[in-house]
């Protein structure tokens, strides 16, 4: 009996060690692409294309960053500005519109609320990406092609975000709103003074997810941002990735610069992002 227990323990320990080794190997594998971004971004062109692959480049060229922003053929600074404007505006607009609508649907009794909810959820059946042709038709007839308006406004109405807010507000404690009503606050002021301050986690969760999605979005900016002036970071990177002659170190440093702000957001707000992802999986 004792001997059996002992081999069992040894087996369990061996299994645990094996699992840890596997996890470490996978973690290294998962980090390699990030490492490649930095390695190639800070290497000399000759180091990148050398047939003798070295883990570390012979010398780190921080001047690559300066070179990137000084290159007149690559509108990187302008693309970063566009992406920032778009991501910030999309995040604020989406969260504002979707949270108000979600609250209305969850809390204000109305005869046709059910029909409105069905109309909202119906759009979830057809993913936005599939309808880029119809949306392009509309935006081009409004004359919004290659404009920030065209890049931002059509993406502000997220049925998914609305649904997440509605589910959250359904479970929001009613006592707080009742107390506000006793104090003589109408629905509008109750919402802003009582509900929003007490619902910050869900705003942070939806906000970070929307921000990451807007920053990384590609198909819609590709379709609408046709002029150079309207390029986002992703469109600019893609244009040079799919071109014939590319300057590798410049492209990699540009990609690294484009990822850096998001990694920062990600590491700082990871708690909210994880919460947002959990919501998206359960409700989506």
């Amino acid at each position, binding site marked *: 009996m004792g001997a059996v227990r002992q081999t069992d323990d040894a087996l369990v320990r061996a299994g645990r060690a094996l699992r840890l080794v596997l996890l470490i190997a996978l973690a290294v594998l998962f980090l390699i692409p990030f490492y490649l971004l930095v390695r190639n971004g800070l290497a000399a062109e000759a180091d990148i294309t050398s047939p003798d692959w070295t883990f570390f480049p012979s010398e780190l060229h921080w001047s690559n960053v300066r070179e990137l922003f000084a290159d007149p053929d690559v509108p990187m600074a302008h693309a970063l500005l566009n992406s920032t404007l778009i991501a910030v505006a999309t995040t604020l607009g989406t969260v504002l519109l979707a949270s108000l609508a979600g609250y209305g649907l969850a809390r204000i009794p109305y005869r046709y609320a059910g029909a409105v909810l069905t109309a909202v959820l119906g759009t979830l059946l057809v993913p936005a990406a599939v309808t880029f042709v119809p949306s392009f038709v*509309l935006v081009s007839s409004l004359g919004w092609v290659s404009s920030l308006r065209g890049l931002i406004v059509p993406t502000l109405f997220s049925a998914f975000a609305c649904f997440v807010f509605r589910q959250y507000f359904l479970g929001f404690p009613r006592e707080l709103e009742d107390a506000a009503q006793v104090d003589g606050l109408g629905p509008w002021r109750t919402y802003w003074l009582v509900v929003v301050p007490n619902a910050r986690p869900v705003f942070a969760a939806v906000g970070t997810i929307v921000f990451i999605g807007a920053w990384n979005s590609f198909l819609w900016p590709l379709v609408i941002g046709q002029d150079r002036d309207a390029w986002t970071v992703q469109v600019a990177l893609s244009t040079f990735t799919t071109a014939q002659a590319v300057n590798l170190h410049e492209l990699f440093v540009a990609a690294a610069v484009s990822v850096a702000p998001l990694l920062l957001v990600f590491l700082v707000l990871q708690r909210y992002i994880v919460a947002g*992802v959990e919501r998206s999986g*359960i409700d989506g």
Partner: protein
Amino acid sequence: MAAYGAVRRRRQALWFWVFTGPFVLGLVLFTYVPLGWSVWLSFFDAHNTVSPTDFTGLDNYRQVLGDPAFRSALGTFALFTAFIVPATYALSLGLALAVSRLRRAQAFFRSVFFLPTACSYVVAALVWKLSVFNGVRFGLANTVLGWFGAEPVAWLSVTDPPWYWLVVVTVRLWLQAGFYMVLFLAGLQRIPPQLYEAAAVDGARPGWQTFRHITFPALRATSVAVVLLLVINAFQAFDEFYNLLSDARGYPPYARPPLVYLYYTALGQGQNLGVGSAGAVVLALVIAVVTVVQSRWSGLGRREA
């Protein structure tokens, strides 16, 4: 009393629209109107125009459904789904199980596997195309092959064998595995510990038996949601295909998923918005049917109602 109730109802209707009106208006304008417009366009000859006059009936639909490129796009989607759905499912579930059993450094490993979620498909495709799976000798994969004396492989430009599938599948796997791992971790946390205690009392051995009879069945709801999301997302694949495979000469004739087909039909040369719209309508119907069937079959829709 009745009059008072009517006033109150009217006031509440007003408040309802104050809150939901802007959102619903935008949703109608930017989702329902374009959809309707596209359905209308799909019955017209609409080259380079959004207000066509030449009614052609079902010609556009006949053209799309008869187009071998369209059918091959659906085939590409099916094949892509067959690769990416099981691969992501297995990897993300495996990661979740392994990470959840760690006694320390759990947060560290979760962060590492989740980190690619912050990366765009464009950047990931760039790294995969120009570094990891670069077809020349200095590509990372070819360097590793070189250590074993193998010849470099032109990963993205050979179709026999179709190595590009390895590139396309691994890039998405890297980007999304951590996201689904987080979903599985949340699912694992919801399993009541009493279930495991009861299983231990009944003599179930930890490891495979417990996984097979306790963990896996308890994760059913999460599994269903994960598979549904994976299929829907695979259907919308565009970014990585476009950035990995197109170059200065354009997009190769193979490996075109539905949205790439649609992109080149509707916005490529000739801007055939009629045929493009017909294609969009057909694809929208396909994905809507897939979603409804899958959620009915899994009972997901019933739970929400």
